[in-house]
């Protein structure tokens, strides 16, 4: 009768995988549109995209590669997903359940980060596939669909998309950290964070030349400089390290700095 539930044997840890699955589901919540409207938007965007591709394809004399820069938006989206997946717990009044989970705080933060990242990567993949198909379609319309052109187009896409994918972990981590700060007693420090971010951005730009402006402007034989230089690798690696630190900082904020 006096079987104890306190014994350690009863205690199995909550797997990170299960947490990520739950958070991922939470982060992928669609806005509350009904099915009809949703379809209408999807079809509308598809028609527009195909329309543009057709128009430029028939003109025939253009370089389709810059469309890949559209994926740069995912850096900001990743940041947004990170914020959303954390602050949604407050918005939906589920934060009490979330924070009282018998799970170490770093695992809560890491799970939020992973689900935001997963969401960013998945959407990026979908958009990249769509852009690849559209670009090839446009090339075909202009009668330029040969292996060399296709490889040039897709190769550039892989470089840009790969860079965005590589930067997403850092962006998502910054989002998770930012979301946690926004709900903490350190909320007044948010302008300070922006100051620090823009300050370091400026420093990087001064020392290495702006990675943003540099890519499309610098001239090479193709009009674009190589994207993946040594300093790109360094920057990506640095963003991962910083992201790692930010997830840890978010865990600390969740542990003892929240405004509840």
């Amino acid at each position: 009768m006096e079987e104890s539930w306190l014994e350690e044997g009863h205690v199995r840890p909550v797997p990170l995988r299960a947490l990520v699955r739950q958070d991922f589901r939470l982060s992928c919540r669609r806005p509350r549109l009904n099915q009809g409207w949703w379809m209408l938007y999807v079809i509308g965007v598809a028609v527009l995209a195909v329309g543009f591709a057709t128009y430029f394809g028939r003109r025939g004399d253009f370089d389709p590669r810059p469309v890949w820069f559209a994926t740069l938006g995912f850096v900001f989206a990743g940041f947004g997903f990170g914020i959303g997946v954390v602050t949604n717990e407050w918005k939906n009044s589920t934060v009490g359940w979330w924070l009282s989970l018998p799970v170490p705080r770093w695992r809560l933060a890491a799970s939020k980060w992973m689900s935001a990242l997963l969401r960013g990567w998945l959407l990026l993949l979908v958009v990249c596939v769509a852009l690849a198909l559209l670009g090839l379609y446009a090339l075909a319309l202009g009668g330029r669909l040969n292996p060399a052109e296709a490889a040039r187009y897709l190769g550039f896409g892989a470089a840009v998309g790969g860079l965005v994918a590589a930067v997403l972990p850092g962006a998502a981590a910054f989002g998770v950290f930012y979301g946690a700060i926004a709900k903490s007693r350190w909320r007044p420090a948010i302008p300070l964070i922006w100051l620090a971010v823009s300050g370091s951005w400026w420093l990087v730009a001064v020392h290495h030349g702006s990675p943003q402006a540099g890519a499309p402007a610098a001239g090479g034989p193709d009009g674009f400089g190589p994207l993946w230089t040594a300093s790109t690798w360094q920057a990506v690696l640095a963003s991962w390290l910083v992201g790692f630190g930010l997830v840890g900082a978010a865990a600390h904020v969740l542990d003892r700095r929240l405004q509840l």
Partner: protein
Amino acid sequence: MDRQVHHGPAGWSQGDGAQVTAGRPPLSAGMSARTENEPANRPPAVRCEGLTKQYGSKRALDGLTLEVPQGRVVGVLGPNGAGKSTLFRVLAGLVQPDAGRVEVAGQLPGWRTNRQIAYLPDRARWYREHTVRDAFRYAEQFLLGFQPEQALELAAWMQLDLDLRAGDMSRGQEARLMLILCIARRVPVILLDEPFAGIDAVSRARITEGLVARIGGGETTVLVSTHELAEVEALFDHAVFLNAGRVLMQGPADELRRRGGSMQEIMQQLYV
């Protein structure tokens, strides 16, 4: 109306029949928490000493000291702002007190102790894309000691459709779901913060019955904060009255009834 009438034909009048409220001794603070069949060696389920928590200029907890024996069903009572929710958040490890000591089941609150605590947060909602079934699966994965069979039984009994999404539920149905997630767990401490707030009478009755089905027997300590006492107060065998972040009065419920009447009457006397 004379009180004796209420005892009806089945009841015998108590004592000398002169049951006048005026004859009661005045309410006093610091009533003994222990009763006769209290095993002395078990640590208290909850122990707070001089707990203080400040939010800006407002003191939510102001030197709160409290000891709750194991196996009790405790009503944590008081008006809004008395410190009930802050106390519960401290016990669930969500909020760090500024000063004072706190122990739940003999340990410092934190995510580790939450394995042994079922906590229903104040004004909480459930994840709206979850059906009842999803919520039970969530609980199986994340909430230690959750017993699915018992949850299903409670759901049937509280008339909760397993395929209903939380987002499509009424407040009462959602409250039933969240209560089940807490009371279908085999844990030593259950904390229910305002489980009856904003809920229709039918759901309130269902929740009360659900609680009765799970409490008692000395295994689980249940702390229930509420300001809606009707119906529920018969569930408490211990009551704690808070005001301005401090314990105003506490004791075994029947003892309090003998001295001051129903919990509701005591509330009215305490907080005028």
